[in-house]
């Protein structure tokens, strides 16, 4: 009972991937994606039946879905971004964006098929197939799209396109993806190239200190700027890309930027001020130079349409840095 290590480790990882984040962090600035739910009638009937290739294979959706249940915070954002918000009847307990989504007590981590069926859905979108979710819902005649944590940027774009096709908003999805690509490219270009090789530490959680390697999705996003991840030295130890780093290594590696993805109270409440007070951390260049960046935890742990905002946050941090 004392150390349910395996199980716990698995759950920790699942929680990381699920975008475990706060319910209160919607304070971010402008967003490129429209949060307003447009009526579904715009979708052309010719788009159905639609066949969509998701992580659980080819899924056929016979008619335009009008009662969608989303068990994934990222997929919820995707749905509203492509204009399918009006077709959504229920979202899981962790979906908190955009404002006004029909939040319920449903869970994507431990889904309850009966509770989902109660909403009489004609399409369910989730990020993992646990507890016989897909086979159970398929028996009920409900198509399921599994849209797991993206491992690449292209994977994230593909999920948005799949959700667009499945809901009759393929064209909007294409333009959302094109807009994201344009904005990300612009922000990366605006930061210039003088900062390449600067080192960073990305904090998923403190005590113990979990980080990400550059092979992870978030690591690849930061890699767009050519920054060097201090956690890469621990790559072998964590095949999943989320190593637990020892504190003395973090301090000795002297990262020039620190990204905090655990600054919301429900994520650990680690603010730049708290980081500066950690014993021994005052000598880290990032702390000395005020380059400890509190990211929007939600955006940093998801792979949805608000990704350009994260890239913009990183671009700003990079631009402030002295060139090496």
């Amino acid at each position: 009972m004392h150390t349910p290590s395996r199980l716990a480790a698995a759950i920790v990882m699942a929680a990381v991937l699920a975008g475990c984040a706060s319910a209160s962090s919607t304070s971010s600035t402008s967003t490129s994606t429209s949060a307003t739910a447009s009526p579904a009638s715009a979708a052309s009937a010719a788009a159905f039946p639609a066949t969509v290739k998701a992580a659980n294979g080819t899924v056929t959706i016979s008619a335009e879905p009008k009662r969608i249940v989303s068990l994934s915070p990222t997929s919820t954002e995707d749905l509203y971004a492509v204009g399918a918000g009006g077709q959504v009847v229920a979202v899981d307990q962790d979906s908190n964006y955009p404002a006004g989504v029909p939040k319920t007590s449903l869970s994507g981590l431990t889904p309850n098929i009966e509770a989902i069926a109660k909403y009489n859905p004609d399409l369910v979108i989730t990020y993992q197939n646990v507890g016989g979710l897909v086979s159970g819902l398929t028996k009920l005649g409900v198509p399921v799209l599994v849209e797991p944590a993206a491992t690449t940027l292209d994977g994230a774009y593909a999920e948005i396109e799949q959700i667009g096709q499945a809901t009759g908003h393929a064209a909007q999805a294409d333009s959302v993806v094109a807009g994201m690509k344009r904005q990300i490219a612009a922000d990366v270009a605006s930061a210039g190239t003088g900062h390449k090789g600067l080192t960073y530490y990305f904090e998923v959680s403190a005590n113990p200190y979990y980080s990400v390697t550059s092979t992870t999705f978030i690591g690849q996003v930061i890699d767009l700027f050519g920054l060097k991840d201090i956690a890469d030295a621990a790559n072998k130890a964590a095949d999943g890309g989320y190593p637990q780093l020892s504190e003395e290594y973090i301090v000795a590696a002297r990262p020039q930027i620190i990204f905090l993805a655990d600054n919301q109270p429900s994520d650990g409440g680690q603010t730049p001020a708290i980081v500066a007070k950690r014993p021994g951390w005052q000598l880290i260049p990032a702390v000395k130079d005020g380059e400890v960046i509190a990211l929007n935890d939600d955006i940093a742990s998801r792979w949805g349409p608000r990704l350009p905002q994260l890239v913009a946050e990183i671009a700003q941090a990079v631009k402030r840095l002295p060139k090496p």
Partner: protein
Amino acid sequence: MTRPALAYAAAAIFLIAAAGVSALVGAADLNPLATIAAMLDKIPFVRLPSSLSPIDRAVLFQIRLPRIVLGILVGGLLSVAGAGYQGVFRNPLVDSGMLGSSAGAGLGATVAVVYLGGIGPSAVPIAAFVGSLAGVAVAALAGAVGTARGPVGNGTATLLLAGVAVGMFLTAAQTYILQRSTQVLQQVYAWLLGSLSGASWQQVTEILPYAVISVLIILAHGRHIDVLSVGDDEARALGMNPALVRGIVVAACALAAASAVAVSGLIGFVGIVVPHVVRRLAGTSYRLVLPLSLLTGAGFLVLADTVARTVLSPAELPIGVVTALAGSPAFVWILRATRAVGT
């Protein structure tokens, strides 16, 4: 040397060696000679130049050394508490997390993360400390109620069973809260796995008073626990109040375990195994088992933490994995090798 003196010397050497090795290795790859020089330089009237850079010094004195000292405290507290419990309950399967102690701490930490997140990270250790003590208090209360109504003479078994029941109840409450707030799963589980990774001198000074008081009380009762081992009636005949002794020792052990848990989370295995190892190697008198458990447990945990933070360096292993993976086979081997010594 007499056998006790030999045992003390062995335990002390083990602890010093463990701390020494731990001070010299780590993910930061500090130069060992420079590290030794920098540490000796801290001794009054010793002046030694060391080639450690300021950041290396920060790593050594602000991160590595407090972690070692905290490991000594936590390992010692868990082991001496486990030994104390095993003594007063005359039960070899009891450990420092019994009687609702671990479950109460887990519930406290979960409540702090879920509902007191706004107060900041400092809420978790305090809530774990309070939860741990409250868990034991509730278990003791439930045990007392059970004993009052039950057949005479099985008070210790009733108290242990009450502890199991209270522990299950508190764990269920914790699971319920977690299930309703899945976004904090990662934080809570990281805590439940146990870790010394956030060690600081501040944590050391925060638990030191509780550690000293509880350890002194437990060590002072070694003779009483020896008397208890012959049975409550016999102890009474010798002029002792078994219930009073048991109450004092349980309270002190609860305080020791709560102090450890507050700064390290739940680290299993140490509290049950170390006293057994000591008993196998040094005899069964608690006047010896208690202080030797303190020393050996401290050394064992420091060693386990050293492995946890170096074997995958710069990545870390959860310390609970190391204590169980390395400790279990060693324990079985010692059980086998020392079968002849009675318990």
